[in-house]
Every structure is written in structure tokens, then in C-alpha cells.
């Protein structure tokens, strides 16, 4: 390994005076300051609580479990998502379904949102396409218990849709 030689550009006397190059830099910052003062809409910022950043179509937010026509969850409690989940966030308890055409249904279906890493493996694993990820991302809550989402939370429609 030889020593790597970096050829830095030589400064001419004008640049070494510093004052004029400094004035040039300051004119650039002043231009930005004036622009963001007179044209606030050109700032690359969102005034967050009032204006929300639009998310991409493939954005992975809160999970949602689809419903059948009669309002029951589409989930058949096959444990595929629970098995696929890399962070053990999903906990399903299955029970026998009333409907003779359907074998099982979830008695409880809990996703611990504190464990969830929003990887979307559960969505990939689901054979019935029952679970998918919405665009909701404001998931703060007041206790750990409230962040263990049960069936009724998971079946809520996406914000601003349906």
C-alpha cells in the first residue's frame, strides 16, 4: 500500500484573500433566505400536522385484515403469517368456524406493533390475501397494551379511504 496522493486545487491570491470568496458565499445564503421568505411554498418542507406528505403506493404502514361480504375477517387462521414473521409480532389463536365451507377462523389475532418491523412478510405469506398494509403511519399511542392491535383495530378501514 503506497501513500495516496491527493492533489488539492491551488488557491490563487484572490481566493486566499478570503474576504471576497466569503462575500460570494454570503450572497448565496442570502438568496436562499430571501427566496424562502418571499416564496414559502418553494421551501421543501411540509407543515406537518396540517399538510401530510403523500406516501408512495407501496408504502407499508399499519396492517389491515380484509372482511368478507358478511363482515367477518377473511383470515382463516392458517398461521402462515405468524410463521413468516421475522420478529414474532403476530399471535393468532384459532377456533372452529360456524360456516361449514370454512374450516377455521381466528379467535384472536394480535399484532404487537412495538415488535413489528413493517417488512411485509406476513402479506407475502397470506394465502387468502387477507392481510395487507395500509398507508396509515401515525401509530403513536399511550401504552404498550394499546399498541397490541387486536382484530377490531386491524379491521378498521384505512384513514381517508373506503
Amino acid at each position, binding site marked *: 500500500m503506497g501513500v495516496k496522493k491527493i492533489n488539492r486545487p491551488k488557491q490563487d491570491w484572490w481566493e486566499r484573500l478570503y*474576504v471576497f470568496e*466569503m462575500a460570494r*458565499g*454570503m450572497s*448565496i*445564503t*442570502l438568496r*436562499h*433566505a*430571501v*427566496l*424562502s*421568505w418571499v416564496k*414559502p411554498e*418553494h*421551501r*421543501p*418542507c411540509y*407543515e406537518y400536522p*396540517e*399538510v401530510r406528505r403523500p406516501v408512495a403506493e407501496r408504502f407499508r404502514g399499519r396492517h389491515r385484515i380484509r372482511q368478507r361480504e358478511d363482515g367477518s375477517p377473511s383470515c382463516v387462521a392458517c398461521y402462515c403469517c405468524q410463521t413468516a414473521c421475522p420478529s414474532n409480532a403476530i399471535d393468532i389463536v384459532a377456533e372452529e368456524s360456524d360456516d361449514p365451507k370454512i374450516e377455521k377462523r381466528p379467535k384472536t389475532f394480535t399484532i404487537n406493533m412495538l415488535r413489528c418491523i413493517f417488512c411485509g412478510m406476513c402479506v407475502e405469506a397470506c394465502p387468502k390475501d387477507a392481510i395487507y398494509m395500509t398507508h396509515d403511519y401515525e401509530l403513536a399511542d399511550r401504552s404498550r397494551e394499546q399498541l397490541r392491535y387486536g382484530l377490531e383495530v386491524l379491521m378498521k378501514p384505512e384513514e381517508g379511504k373506503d
Partner: protein
Amino acid sequence: MPEWVKIVLTSEYTWAVAALVVAYVFTLVGIPVYTWLERRGAGFIQRRPGPNRRGPYGIIQAIADAVKLAVKEDVVPAAANKWLHAIAPMIVMTVALTTFAVIPWSGDFVLFGDTFRLQIADLNFGIIFILAISSMGVYGTALAGWSSNNKYSLLGGLRSGAQMVSYEISMGLAIVGLLLVFGTVRLSEMVFQQSGAIWYWGVFQAPLAFVIYMVASYAESNRVPFDLVEADSEIVAGYHTEYSSLRFGLFYMGEYVHMAVISVLTVVLFFGGWHIPWAQELFGPQPYAVLFPWLMFVLAIVFFLIGWDASLPKRRVHTKGNLIMSALMILAALGSVLAGGLYWTYDATNSIPWIASLAGVVTQLAVLGAKFAFFFWLFIWIRWTMPRFRYDQLMKLGWKVLLPLALLNICITSVLVLAGWL
């Protein structure tokens, strides 16, 4: 006019208190505005809004910050020297505030035969007083660094000591060049000598001294590009690493007061203080009194524009604070129009001399304030533009560039003064 108004107006104490009030407005009252201006300015330069939530245009944010600082726990390190640790922030703040005692805020004005001036103490060694007091500031930062018993703080304190001492010399010598031109160290007299044409201003009489003074005073204030003392990417927070709560607040406020001192002093020494160039030639024997109604009309327009803007819905909502602000601004605009209009209709400049004197003082303060505002903005502007100097660059600039330049400046100025050209 009742007799007591005359007694109050012609009392020396009234004007001493008035000068104190002006000094307080520029320092302690100004601090929330300065911090707001800094954060808003930083935001705008970086293409973001800055604090804009609490109160109209986010102006209450600074007070919210102060309350936050006040209710935080005051942590003193167990190994610290408690006494020095407590006294260091006080030194910084006291030193910064004391320099305001000798700033002349207005020219002489005559009320019922007596002459007054808005200045707390017209010392005949004014500028030397300021140099002496402001060089005490190094005790604050150096002691803070040493007493915290923390290696980063100590490094910050050491840097502050070295930096302040190096740049103090250049600053003093630059001012010597200016003293040669003015032939006095009394600040009020220096301002009087800058009246008339614009080339009587210090900056045109001693341009090299101005450049050296500006660089050295930025180094004195420990701000970018000379903020090696607190250099947050190198030594955590430098001398105030171990400070929290209002003790940190004192350092923080001291920095802004120091900036205000330097801005005012730059205006007073180099930019004619409260003078408008060619004032006498353009506006007659009482230029500032004549300009008073114009100042009021300009203020009215500014107030009206702010009030109008505040009344517009921000982020699609009307907030209560903005509406109150808007109402106050419209009232202020009406008040300014009323004051200016009454002054105009009664021709107070010629018919009511005591009103004319007071109006002149107000105009002079406004002129000083406008110049001051520019130099304060310059501090903020430079801070968010420049990168920090390396330590060797700092020392090289101080000792190998500024010091010889200051000496050269003294030689040139002496020759020019002896030749009678200045």
C-alpha cells in the same frame, strides 16, 4: 402644560432612566427577539420555516425556551469547583451588560434651555472602558471551562483564553488607528465627529481598521467562524458542556448580549452612530425633528403590512395569536399615523420646540436601531454561511495577518494625520 411635566422632562434622572430603558431594550428585552431572529434566519437560509408555531410568526418560541431552561434541573458536577462554576456565567453576563453603560444613544437635545443626552455614563475614556470590560469576558469562559473539571470544558476554556487574548491585541490596535483619526476616546465625541458628509464616517476614514475590528470582534464574541471555544463537533459544547438550566441560559443570553454590544459599537465607531449622512444639508438645522413625521409614516406602513400579513390564514387556519397580533399592528399603524399627522399639522418642528427635541431623539434612536439591526443580521448571516476555522488557521490569522495589518494601519494613519489629510 402642567408644571410637573416640565419638572419631569427637565430632570436629569428622567433621562438617566430613559437611557437605562433604552439599554435594557437593546439587551434583556431584546434577547427573545434576537434568539427568534437567529432561529428564523437560520431556517430561512436553510430553506425551512424555522420556529413558526408558538405565537404569531413563532415569536413566543424564545419565551417558551426560556421557561424550559428555567424549570430544568440545575446539575453541578460532583467534582466541579462549585464556587467558580456558579460565578463563571455571571461574569459573562455582567461583562456583556456593563459595556452598554457608555454607548451614546442620541445626540444632545435641548428641553426648556437645558441640554440632555441619552447616555448612561459619558466617560471621557469611553472606548478604553469598553475594551477593558469586554476583555474581562475571557474570565467567564476560561473559568467555566476550568471549574467544570471536564476535559472538553477545559479544552474549550483554554481555546477561549488563547483566542480572546490573540484577537484582543489586533482589536485594540485597530481602534488605536481610529483614535488617531478622531483624536478622542470619548464615545459621544467620536459620534459627533462623524456628522455631515458620509465620508466622515469611521469606516471611510479608517477602512482597514474597520475590517480588522470586525474580524477581531467576531472572534471576541466566540461565534462562527471563530466558535472553536464551543466547537460542538470537536469538544461537545466546549466551556459550557457541564452547564444546564439557567446557568447555561446565562451563557446563551450573554452571547446574544455580546453580539448586541459589538453591533452597537460597530455602528457608533464606524457608521456614524445616530447620524444620517448630509442630514443638515438636506433637512435644515433640525434634520431629525423634520424627519420625525416621515419616520412615523414609514413605521405605519411597516406595521400595516405586518398586521395585514398576520391576518391572513396561516396553514389554512386562523390562530388567535395571529389575529391579536394583527389587531395590535393595525392599532400601532393608526397610532403612528396619528402621531405623525398631529406633528405635521401643528408644525411642531418650528412652533413647539420641546416636542421637536423629543421627536428628534426618537428619530435618532430609530436611525441607530436600523443600523444596529443590519449588523445584528450580519452576525446571523455569517454564522449560517461560514465553516469553522481550524485552530492553526485561527492563530495564523490572528498573529500573522491581523496584527501586522493593524500595525501597518497605525503607521499609515499616523502619516496621513501628520500630513493633515485626515
